[in-house]
């Protein structure tokens, strides 16, 4: 255990990529569902890295349903994915992977590495929340106060080691003691599909819900309001906030196309034109191009827009059901 801790620490002290030439790379997790059943022939599911235009490189397992990706802010080679068979970790930017969980953990929907301590990682699973404090060397259940335990999304508070918010079948749950106990928060006991916060403005949080649109908190998740307009009764699978401009937000879900807000969530405009499928399950603002928004669709691959959704550019992965997308800065 001590050796592994030391190894992880060294990796963080000496990251393999120089930050001087920092560039953000786009990773997406893909579920090719067409004809997919467990035990069928190998299909190119799993993690992809964008190479430009419509070209993508596959990374790691080829037959793994991955639902979420997260990385340590200070070391892009340290990454976790939430997958059907557990929480997988790479220490070398995806060249090799380890399933860090065991038989007790399955159907992992989301993973969140704490930005202030990469050893502290939470996973949301269909049977509850698990956490590790040693970078995945050991895991334990962390469900005290969580009812029901089905959890789909989890997000660490970038400003506090103690705070973490989870979303499940009956709403949002807040922990202020590193997941040791949970209390309901938020206005509605509705299924929550995604939670996001902004590191630059840590008081601002968004949550996507089933049939209740987007929930917004401007006080670090203590109280929540509901986004108004056409978005308010939609099922929202993913929400995102621009890294450097917290007034710029996006949301997408079942048959929604993309909702974009340019005023910090006060108003939302729906964009459907030019999209073959309106089911959106991946969203990311491009750190390299300040106005570029990427989306991952459920069945028609990846697109990006540079005009706030007025037009879309196809970026490949035809037929793919994208479950998550994330920029990782090198």
């Amino acid at each position, binding site marked *: 255990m001590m050796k592994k801790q030391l190894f992880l620490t060294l990796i963080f002290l000496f990251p393999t990529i120089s930050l001087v030439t920092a560039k953000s790379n786009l990773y997406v997790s893909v579920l090719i569902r067409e004809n997919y059943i467990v*035990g069928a022939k190998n299909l190119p599911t799993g993690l992809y890295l964008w190479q430009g235009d419509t070209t993508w490189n596959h990374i790691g*397992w080829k037959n793994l349903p991955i639902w979420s990706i997260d990385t340590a802010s200070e070391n892009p080679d340290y990454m976790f994915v939430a997958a*059907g068979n557990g929480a997988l970790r790479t220490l070398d930017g995806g060249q090799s992977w380890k399933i860090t969980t065991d*038989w007790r953990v399955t159907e992992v*929907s989301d993973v969140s590495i704490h930005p202030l301590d990469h050893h502290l990682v939470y996973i949301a699973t269909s*049977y509850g929340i698990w956490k590790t404090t040693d970078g995945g060397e050991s895991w334990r259940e962390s469900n005290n106060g969580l009812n029901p335990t089905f959890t*789909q999304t989890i997000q660490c508070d970038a400003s506090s080691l103690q705070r973490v918010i989870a979303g499940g079948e009956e709403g949002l749950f807040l922990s202020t003691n590193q997941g040791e106990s949970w209390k309901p928060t938020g206005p509605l006991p509705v299924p929550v599909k995604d939670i996001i916060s902004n590191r630059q403005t840590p008081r601002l949080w968004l949550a996507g819900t*089933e049939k209740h649109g987007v929930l917004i908190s401007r006080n670090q998740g203590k109280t929540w309001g509901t986004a108004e307009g056409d978005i308010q009764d939609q*099922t929202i*699978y993913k929400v995102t906030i621009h890294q450097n401009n917290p007034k710029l937000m996006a949301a997408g879900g079942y048959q929604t196309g993309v909702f974009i807000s340019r005023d910090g969530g006060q108003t939302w405009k729906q964009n459907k034109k030019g999209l073959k499928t309106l089911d959106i399950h991946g969203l990311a603002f491009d750190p390299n191009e300040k106005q570029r928004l990427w989306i991952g669709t459920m069945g028609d691959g990846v697109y990006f827009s540079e005009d706030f959704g007025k037009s879309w550019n196809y970026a490949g992965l035809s037929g793919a059901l994208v479950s998550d997308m994330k920029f990782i800065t090198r």
Partner: protein
Amino acid sequence: MIKRLLPLTVISVLLMACSPKQNQPKPAHSIYHPPHSAEIAHQYQTRCDSLIDYYASLQNNTYFHIAANLYLRKNLETTFAKLDTLLQNPGGDMFWMYPFVMVSFLGQDLFPPNIRTKMRTLWKTYTPFRGDTENHWAMYYASLYLITQMYPNDPGNTWFNGKTSRENHREAEEYLIHWIELTTSLGQGEFDSPDYYGCFMAPVALLSAFAKDAAMQKRAAMLLDYLVADFAAENLGGFYVGGHSRIYPRQVRNGWETTATAFSWLLFGNTLFRPSGQSLFLAISGYQPPEILYHIANDRSEAYVHKEYKRTRHRMRYSEQRNAPVYKYNYICNDYALGSIQGGLLQPIQQHTWDITWSSDTPRQGYNTLFTLHPYSSADELKMYFTYETDLIVDAIVKSKTTYDSPEKLTGGSPYERAFQHRKSLIVLYDIPPQTRFPHINGFFPKSLSRRETDDSGWIFCQGGQALIAFYPLAPYEWIEKDGYWRYFSSELHNGAVVQTAAQKEFASFEDFKQAVRKLRIITNTSPKPSVLFTTLDQEDLAFTFGEIPSVNGVAVDYNNWKLFDSPFLQATRKSQRMEMHYKELHKILDFNSLTTKTWIN
């Protein structure tokens, strides 16, 4: 058809007091002449040998074909060449793992170095997914346990999942022990599936054959007996009878096409030859079924009631119980079996709640069964067991389970269906809300029925093989002709049926059976809830209202004390991890607490 009389409880008492005793059926007996003990063992070995020879002589290229040749040590050069080809394109996750492990052990002293190296390398370069079902995990962890036993000291970077041999071995061992404890305490979640039976038998056979650890080897050998006993007691001429957790649409019509019949041929010799790769592995494993199980599977000279307790698959939401109880009930005689589970949602997609299956002289043709169901289709059901998005989950499931969202489907459970069985009689009730996706019930009446007569009394009289079936609908219905069967269709939302069965030998003629059934007292009601009072051919009074505990002769059915196994052949209490087998003077006990067995002859 619908009689509105006195309150049901009052009627129940009256019926008990004045039930007619005439027209009682004659007892159903048949003669059982088993071979001698040595002959039973010899015949089993002969079937094993012939199955292995069959696979060895195939001209295809599968791990099963290769395993058979390695076992026989025949055609080795050709076998290595074929194996080399297979190694170039691994696929199938846990369905790849267990045959690969079998081949690895059978050939470990035979393989040339290049094959050996390639086989080891695949465990790093191929990434088998663990899957999401009980059968997936049984195959995955049994394989992982054995292959890490073969390579006990390798580091994590030589394995697909990054874990060391020791980590993988320990995890596999923990899961397998957990699974076996759960199975022998509360039953399987994927219980009694004719299609998936082999997916449990094959990996357990591997463990039994190759586990070095004496405790694990013993545990696996005992579990084989346990799983074989579970099937033996619900076996009718090779068919796995009664309610099932999982069965496919084609197989629910033709039970011959399941892997269970392949195992029945091999283990019990009570049906025609049917090859399966999974039963091949049992044959290769060296497993010798105890003689008592041969008799339990074959002796139908006396009719018997066999009850079991099972559990649902793990529920992730919409349920207060992670594993809800399943109550199985079977009446089995030489000519047919009537079997059921209590209804409701007990397993996603492929549940089979009740049927009558009759003995057939032409088992390969199947279509020797009759049943009804409500074709329920809902994201709510699927979300209990799967994590996918609500609005997309039905479409995702239909990709592989193509009939799930079909109004004509013949498999699946429903929250609007309840079944209650007592011996040869069954009452199935439906209370379907109007807004449900498919507001009707389906029934499967095969054209192989030698009789299907609609009677003025309201009964439908049928005969399948030597089984006589009386079916009393609670609501109007129609027949829709389909390929090979008549689809019984009723769009009445408060619905149900009473089923009375008998063996042909119990009556002098079909007309006598009809006459006897017509005289039975039956009182049905469909409002506000479907409800039935029925006096059976055995002169027992059954009362059942949708959503309530049924009763027999005024006594409520005791589900609280329902045993894990309860029949003349098998006895086990819940959470006991212990099973008793009894057949005449033969007895055997499996005790998983102490990992001991006891066999004796009285």
